[in-house]
């Protein structure tokens, strides 16, 4: 079958996933692989006074026990690099303390790896881990999102890793001084755990008699991990092969090279045998990177008509115990790509301080800074609407960047290429049938429920490496391999990419095989993150496809006995402009192969995007609050989104649904809670409330496409947009419902108890005020 773009092609990978034929990392581990178990710090902060692995080594079935000292003795570089760091406002570098793979005399979070035990069975490895004796002299942990406390690292005496800022502070202050209205509010965006269905998993084996090493793991791109592991061994990168098979969810978290991967690789190399590890869910909660974790003061200066003149944010964000790969970059550079949202404001200032806490590191989580930034400004718009007595849709109407103002240069330094924010806003209001809201509110009230309406706009910036490659390879068996540098973790890349190529070359989609996740087969790639895959990879695919056609053109001309100029490529072949002669592409491919011109049918190309693209949208949500219990239910949800060109609406809707669900999860129920000792209280799904299908509403999606000018397909990226919209829209809806009780500026998560308490507090305050 042939499929063009904009077709709702069903996901080709789903029959594999749904019938148990998916092949995930642990499914592929060799039967004879040894098992590794980690000895993790039971306390959040302390000095290792004693570490005795003798008893563990002596246990039956145990093949090796490794600590930081063993890694050093084997010449390993026991340090995990932070890839992105920032500079302080004063130009000095941020704190960049060493992050060991295994603890070097000091532990800084519960779950930090102290030792690894490798054994013939999982049970023997667990026995070994239990037999390792550790004594830790505890140090008072720092868990507050504020400077101060006992320092985790010498490099940051007050636990402030960086004090970063962007924008013109003075100009902003001057505007504030003269503005008709100044609105100020706190915004908490608490910490969550990405919690993918498939926990982090890795297995490694020596190749070529130990000359090389192969590591298979769930990732969002194999190349960065290959570099990191190679650096750890002090090897050339090509001695490491990283393979990623099917992946059960990543959400940003699986981008990173985690300590366990180095330990697995080291053990396999040292013992000359395959070694496997799969995180239990409890281990995941102790060792996965967290997401979000910010508190901010958000301020806007408005004129008398409610137009935003200047904007500023001053916040602190949680880095956890160490700088993870992108840790410092997220609430700083990445967030400020969209710091002023969809609004016309020209003066803005963003200050963010990163705080080390005795918790696992914090890093990218779906949206990585952009949902957070949108939340801030959308909360401000709502608060301004309420205080200035303007309808929340109306205040946004007055402030959005008008269509004619594009390309729009933001105070954050981005250039929004295209957009029609007003049309998206009107579409959302119409599709959500906002006119009918008063009647629905009355119906809720009749049932003892308080209804709230929330609206939020968002704009996203597609991030990551702007350049990407693709290779198209016609195989002798008639199939076509499409090698890509991105990595599906469940999004449906095998469908979207094949669909694109099928359309471009007129090929049967069933013949196309998308190949990804093997650093030996694919030399380079930017991986998946920042909603870049379709935009960056799609551009590379069409570039490679065009190159393939160009390469075959002389041959086709010869076969049709004409000139190249007389040929058009269309509908899967070369057509002679005059007359009706047609040469199918596959015939040209056959001929090239017959003539030994293999380079014509195996073509690679790279494409670099001209600039970022800016997905945007408006979400409208209605919630019902049960005032007796504090329970909130989402009863209506409409999303109008501009994702530019849509390749496959089915896949896009799926991405929106998933993103919206993660936003709802965070706003209503998900949260990582650590007690003052740094012990996680939400260490399993018994306490960490991941939303389930029946916690979610039906989500109506509407597309308002304005194709991006910055890439050949005009796409914009939809992977993270859902959460950028839902985080703010749901919060605004809950805030609206709570306003009926006099609750001011409520903070998520809106768990039943917290909501009930907010209402009671407001009632008590009102009673006290008489």
């Amino acid at each position, binding site marked *: 079958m042939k499929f063009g773009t904009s077709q709702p092609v069903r996901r080709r990978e789903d029959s594999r996933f749904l019938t148990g034929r998916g092949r995930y990392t642990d499914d592929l581990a060799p039967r004879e692989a040894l098992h590794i178990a980690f000895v993790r710090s039971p306390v959040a902060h302390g000095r290792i006074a004693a570490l005795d692995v003798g008893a563990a080594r002596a246990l039956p079935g145990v093949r090796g026990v490794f600590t930081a000292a063993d890694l050093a003795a084997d010449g390993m570089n026991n340090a995990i690099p932070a890839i992105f760091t920032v500079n302080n406002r004063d130009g000095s570098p941020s704190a960049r303390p060493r992050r060991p793979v295994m603890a070097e005399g000091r532990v800084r979070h519960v779950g930090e790896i102290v030792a690894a035990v490798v054994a013939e069975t999982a*049970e023997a490895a*667990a026995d070994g881990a*239990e037999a390792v004796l550790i004594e830790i002299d505890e140090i008072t942990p720092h868990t507050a999102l504020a400077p101060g406390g006992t320092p985790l690292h010498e490099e940051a005496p007050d636990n402030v890793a960086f004090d970063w800022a962007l924008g013109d502070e003075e100009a902003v202050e001057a505007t504030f001084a003269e503005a008709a209205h100044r609105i100020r509010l706190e915004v908490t965006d608490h910490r969550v755990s990405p919690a993918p269905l498939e926990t982090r998993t890795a297995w490694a084996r020596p190749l070529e008699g130990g000359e090389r090493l192969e590591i298979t793991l769930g990732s969002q791109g194999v190349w960065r991990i290959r570099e990191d592991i190679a650096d750890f061994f002090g090897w050339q990168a090509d001695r490491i092969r990283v393979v990623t098979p099917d992946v059960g969810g990543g959400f940003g978290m699986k981008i990173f090279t985690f300590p366990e991967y180095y330990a697995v690789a080291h053990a396999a190399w040292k013992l000359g045998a395959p070694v496997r590890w799969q995180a239990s869910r*409890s281990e995941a909660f102790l060792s996965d990177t967290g997401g979000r974790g910010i508190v901010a003061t958000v301020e806007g200066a408005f004129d008398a008509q409610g137009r935003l003149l200047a904007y500023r944010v001053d916040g602190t964000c949680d880095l956890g115990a160490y700088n993870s790969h992108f840790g410092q970059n997220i609430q700083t550079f990445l967030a400020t790509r969209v710091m002023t949202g969809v609004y016309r404001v020209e003066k803005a200032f963003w200050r963010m301080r990163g705080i080390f806490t005795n918790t696992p590191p914090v890093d990218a989580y779906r949206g990585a800074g952009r949902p957070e930034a949108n939340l801030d400004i959308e909360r401000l718009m709502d608060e301004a609407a309420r205080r200035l007595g303007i309808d929340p849709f109306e205040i946004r109407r007055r402030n959005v960047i008008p269509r004619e103002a594009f390309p729009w240069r933001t105070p954050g330094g981005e250039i929004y290429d295209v957009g029609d924010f007003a049309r998206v806003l009107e579409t959302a209001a119409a599709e959500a049938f906002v006119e009918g809201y008063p009647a629905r509110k009355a119906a809720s009230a009749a049932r003892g429920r308080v209804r709230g309406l929330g609206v939020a706009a968002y704009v996203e910036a597609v991030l990551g490496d702007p350049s990407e490659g693709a290779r198209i390879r016609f195989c002798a068996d008639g199939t076509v391999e499409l090698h890509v540098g991105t990595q599906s973790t469940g999004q449906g890349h095998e469908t979207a990419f094949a669909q694109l190529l099928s359309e471009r070359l007129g090929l049967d989609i069933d013949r196309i095989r998308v190949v990804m996740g093997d650093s030996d087969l694919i030399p380079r790639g930017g991986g998946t993150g920042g909603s870049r895959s379709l935009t960056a990879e799609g551009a590379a695919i069409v570039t490679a496809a065009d190159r393939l056609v160009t390469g075959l053109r002389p041959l086709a001309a010869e076969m049709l006995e004409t000139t190249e100029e007389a040929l058009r490529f269309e509908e899967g072949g070369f057509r002679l402009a005059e007359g009706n002669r047609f040469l199918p592409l596959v015939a040209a491919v056959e001929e090239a192969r017959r003539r030994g011109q293999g380079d014509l049918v195996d073509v690679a190309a790279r494409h670099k995007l001209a600039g970022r693209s800016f997905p945007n949208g408006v979400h409208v949500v209605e919630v019902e609050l049960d005032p*007796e*219990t504090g*329970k909130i239910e989402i009863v209506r949800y409409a999303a109008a989104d501009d994702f530019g060109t849509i390749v496959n609406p089915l896949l896009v809707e799926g991405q929106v649904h998933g993103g919206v669900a993660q936003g709802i999860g965070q706003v209503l*129920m998900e949260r990582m*809670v650590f007690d003052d000792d740094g012990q996680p*209280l*939400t260490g399993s*799904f*018994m*306490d*960490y*409330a*991941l939303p389930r299908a029946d916690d979610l509403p039906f989500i109506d999606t509407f597309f308002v496409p304005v194709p991006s000018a910055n890439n050949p397909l005009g796409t914009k990226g939809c992977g993270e947009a859902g959460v950028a919209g839902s985080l703010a829209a749901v919060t605004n809806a809950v805030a609206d419902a709570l306003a009926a009780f006099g609750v001011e500026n409520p903070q998520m998560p809106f*768990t*039943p*108890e917290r909501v*009930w*308490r907010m209402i009671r507090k407001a009632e008590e305050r009102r009673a006290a005020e008489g």
Partner: protein
Amino acid sequence: MYAFEFVKPKTVEEAVAALREGEAKVLAGGQTLIPTLKQRLAAPEKLVSLAGVEGLRGIRTGDGVVEIGAGTTHAVIARELAGAVPALAALAGDIGDPAVRNRGTIGGSLANNDPSADWPAAVLGLGATVVTDRREIAADDFFQGLFTTALEEDEIITAVRFPMPKTAAYAKFDQPASRFALVGVFVARLDGNVRVAVTGASENGVFRWQAAEAALGADFAPAAVEALAPPPAEEMISDLHGAGDYRAHLVKVMTKRAVAACG
């Protein structure tokens, strides 16, 4: 998991005998015990499976009683009692997810006596009788605090006998993550009296809210509950999903809702 021995007796007597030798534990649906073993939080030497024991499964109704075999799963109860005792069927049908309901048993839930489990509320709320291999234990005597019951180490529950209520209802407020009861209230009108049993809330496990029973005995209506003070907050569980005062408040709300549901 640690290693253990596994036995699968055919009769209750054999099972009891097996329990008496060494550190042994009964295995029913395994929905509580297996996760505990997997996390290495328990290390029995032997598991005595009830899967092959005759006569532990099934539901018999008649003579104003419903007798449920201890090995009957939540799913079977949800299905088979929907007509006869809808309150019990609804309670069973709201436990966990389909996989849990298809394996987990009423006997396992009662023996475990998790302070947030649902069955204890029904058993205490209806004043049921717990039948074991050696005796019959009244609900009022059976539950003895968190994860503690009147059962002896080697005693096996064989059945639970419920009196048929005039009306009964269970109102459960889910703990958002686990969906066990943050607070669950079972209200029953029996011949001559009203019983109100509360799970999920108290630091001492399931309990009867006597003030509500008295008020509802006089006037079986939500308004009768409205007038009551909630149970003492300091006796309620406090955790990250709800502090004592919130749980105490929910006891009242859920009691009202259960009464309203009784019709």
